[in-house]
């Protein structure tokens, strides 16, 4: 337990310093009106996928856990159902969880009439096989559009749902990666002179997990975990560093982003033998909150093929559902229904002409 807690809390001050330094650099950059983009790797902007256009994103997340790497491979399909409505479906495969909950997840001691529940067998660095996690669905509706030349302010509502029901043993809910349930929220994106900032505020209402946790004797004990409800608060900034001036669609665009991902969640409730055990004396199952920092670099080739690379670090407190740093690589492209017509045309250049 001590070792685990030390492991969890290591190097936070250093990363916090790094985060603050990065924030200062960003603010100073933005104050000079650096060009920015809203194609954030982690957060969705209030803008949509064009109507009738499909998008495909393949992404990979990994982080070191003790002496092995936890990995997630995911595939996302997005579609512009209406000009203001985008829908997405994501499937993923991970080695994050075992078939069952960790053995001896909850135990107890008696002292007179008092029973104290606690977890004394937190498992880290255990090798698990890859499992199909499930399906995650997301829909976003842009309800406010204020467009002007080279700027916009837009707001959208989103709803998401997941049937990912893996043996997740932390209080924090994660709809795409770990828990079943649904969520929703609001997105506000502002863009001016190529400067982009976006805020996402939302909630997660996770569904419980029912499975087994083997006891000391190896007997499978029916166990139910009700994860904590959560509030999320994310803030994203981005700017374009290349090109300085657009000349044609073949130019490779390089964007830099900094995203703050925050979450606050309730404690989990674990039920075994009809007892609802609250609170469980471990930070993993207790209520918590954190803000992570995700600096990213993005390259867009031919104005369509997108490559995102990012590193996630804890800025304020931390998530107990993962270790740091979290590395992310994503590739994405849109499939335009009339791409053939486009290809048949001679190599087109964006031409400036007089009004």
């Amino acid at each position, binding site marked *: 337990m001590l070792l685990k807690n030390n492991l969890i809390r290591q190097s936070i001050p250093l990363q916090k310093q790094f985060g603050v330094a990065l924030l200062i650099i960003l603010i100073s950059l933005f104050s000079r009106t650096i*060009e920015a*983009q*809203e*194609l954030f790797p982690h957060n969705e902007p209030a*803008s*949509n*996928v*064009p*109507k*009738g*256009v499909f998008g495909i994103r393949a992404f990979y997340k990994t982080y070191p856990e003790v002496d092995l790497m936890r990995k997630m491979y995911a595939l996302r399909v997005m579609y*512009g159902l209406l*000009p203001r409505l985008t829908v997405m479906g994501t499937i993923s495969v991970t080695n994050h969880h075992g078939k069952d909950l960790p053995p001896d997840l909850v135990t107890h001691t008696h002292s007179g009439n008092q029973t104290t529940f606690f977890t004394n067998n937190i498992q880290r660095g255990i090798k698990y096989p890859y499992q199909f996690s499930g399906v995650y669905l997301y829909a976003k509706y*842009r309800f406010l*559009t204020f*467009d*002007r*030349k*080279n*700027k*916009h302010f*837009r707001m959208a509502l989103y709803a998401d749902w997941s049937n990912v029901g893996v043996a997740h043993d932390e209080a924090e809910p994660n709809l795409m990666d770990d828990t079943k349930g649904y969520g929703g929220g609001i997105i506000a994106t502002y*863009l001016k002179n*190529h400067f*982009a900032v976006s805020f996402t505020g939302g909630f997660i209402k996770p569904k419980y997990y029912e499975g087994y946790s083997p006891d000391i004797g190896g007997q499978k004990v029916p166990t139910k975990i009700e994860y904590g409800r959560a509030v999320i608060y994310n803030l994203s900034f981005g700017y*374009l560093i290349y090109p300085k*001036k*657009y000349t044609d*669609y073949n*130019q490779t*665009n390089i964007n830099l982003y900094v995203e703050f991902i925050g979450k606050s969640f309730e404690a989990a409730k674990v039920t075994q033998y009809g007892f609802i055990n609250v609170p469980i004396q471990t930070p993993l199952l207790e209520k918590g909150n954190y803000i992570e920092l995700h600096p990213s670099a993005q390259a*867009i080739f031919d*104005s*369509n093929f*997108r490559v995102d690379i990012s590193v996630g670090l804890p800025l304020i407190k931390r998530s107990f559902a993962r270790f740091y740093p979290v590395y992310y690589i994503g590739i994405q492209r*849109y499939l*335009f*229904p*009339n*791409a053939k*017509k*486009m290809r048949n*045309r001679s190599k*087109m250049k*964006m*031409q*400036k*002409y007089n*009004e």
Partner: protein
Amino acid sequence: MIKNRLHIKTIITIALVIMSIQKGLAQFITAEIGVDGLTCSQCSRSVEMSLLKLVFVKDVQMDLESTIGKIIFKADAKISFKKIAKAINDAGFSVRYLKAAYSFKNSYDTSNFIPLNAFGLFCFVNTKNKELNGEVLLTFLGKEFMPKQQYNKWKIEIKKTCGEINKENYYVYTQ
């Protein structure tokens, strides 16, 4: 006799050429559209792809720096300017302005609704009793062709000149 025939043939050919030129000119050939809300080349590409879906569009040239697109129409095509505006909205953006040049071969009295090579009739706002001849630049008025506040200012003017607003028609002004 042969000379005369040749002469007549030449006259007929010239007349036909002139007529075809006139026919060619009396239509919308290009339009210019200002697009609001976009800054990235991926967004500009989406706008272009959306416009290229339209059957009457031959080519589109987007200038991302000024967010202005030049639309080239297919010859003798019937144009729907409302579909152009819809294509911009479908791509996720808004129309700042839409202008199109039309070469009038005859002179027109703008006190009437005029049919041009587009779906719907054209009513000229602020140009009453003015004669249209030669190449004229038409700026489209409508909630789909300009920011909302700007349209609200024009609304009274449109009603004053053209009567009740009919969705099927186009309201334009000339500079």
